[in-house]
């Protein structure tokens, strides 16, 4: 449970940025390993591509794209906050970043399941 002093939108935005950052740090080595299979073991790469047709893999990819987009848009909000003149609309910007991430990841998912 979230402790009471943390129960507000900008703390949740902080936590989303932190969790998405850690998740992407864990994902990227696996991503690069799989890409490297194109050079080291193309047959294994083809087997992996077959796995991506599974609906659960697509749902997981939706989560990954959401985290990537949330980290990118949330990071842009933080850079704007620290480099541009202050705006009191930080909660609006954080909500917009989450909405943008959701829109991007939903577009990806719809595209993935319609192919």
């Amino acid at each position, binding site marked *: 449970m979230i*402790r009471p002093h943390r129960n507000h939108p900008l*703390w949740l935005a902080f936590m989303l940025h932190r969790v998405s950052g850690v998740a992407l740090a864990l994902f990227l080595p696996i991503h690069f390993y799989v890409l490297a299979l194109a050079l080291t073991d193309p047959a294994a790469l083809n087997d992996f591509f077959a796995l991506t047709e599974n609906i659960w893999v697509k749902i997981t990819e939706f989560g990954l794209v959401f985290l990537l987009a949330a980290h990118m848009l949330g990071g842009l909000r933080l850079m704007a906050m620290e480099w541009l003149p202050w705006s009191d609309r930080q909660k609006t910007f954080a909500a917009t970043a989450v909405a943008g991430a959701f829109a991007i990841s939903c577009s990806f998912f719809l595209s993935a399941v319609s192919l």
Partner: protein
Amino acid sequence: MSQELSVSVWRSETNAFQEFAVPAQDNQTILDVVSWIQANSDPTLSYRFACRVGMCGSCAMMVNGEPRWTCRTHVKKVLKSNSLQIAPLRNLPVVKDLATDMEPFFDKWVEAKGVFQGTKTRHDAIEPILPDTAERVAASTAIECINCAVCYAACDSVSGNADYLGPAALNRAWSLVNDVRDGAYEERIEAVSGTGGCHNCHSQGGCAKYCPNDLNPSASIAGLKRKTTRNWFGWGRS
């Protein structure tokens, strides 16, 4: 509201919460509740207050897990299921029960060069300061701090890094780096650029959410980040 409040109060001797039943009133602050307990139930209960009107910054405590100035927090605003939990402020050592040792908090004001360094003497003419200049407007956003340490208790960056100067000290520094009468700009920028400085802030915004005077230390710290970055690149003050 029922006739009695169920109040859990942190006791340092037992390292646990102690339950008290306190008569409910129509108009009652958290400080009233604590004072009633000390006057009627347990005279050994220790806590701190002075002005009772939200000016001195002495009486802040954790109320139901959130930092608040207790003299201006009405029970009705924070009561949950007819019960209250009252604890000493987070991120500060406890002297006894609800009274915290504020020394680390004020030490950090000094570390952040929170003391005004005037450049004139009493023999100089008074320098006119126009209230609508950009520097004065920026300084004025941060000057109403009452040193209650509510922001300090709300901040997880303080919890995670004992060296972090914290929102109140940095807010004070922001006020002074925008004060054209002050002569210690470079020292102050250096002080807030170090290992415990403004760049430790994770922009969680708890300081601004809980500041009882509606100040925004998050904005002040973001301003310091811009100033220190400009200084690092050698781009000058503004």
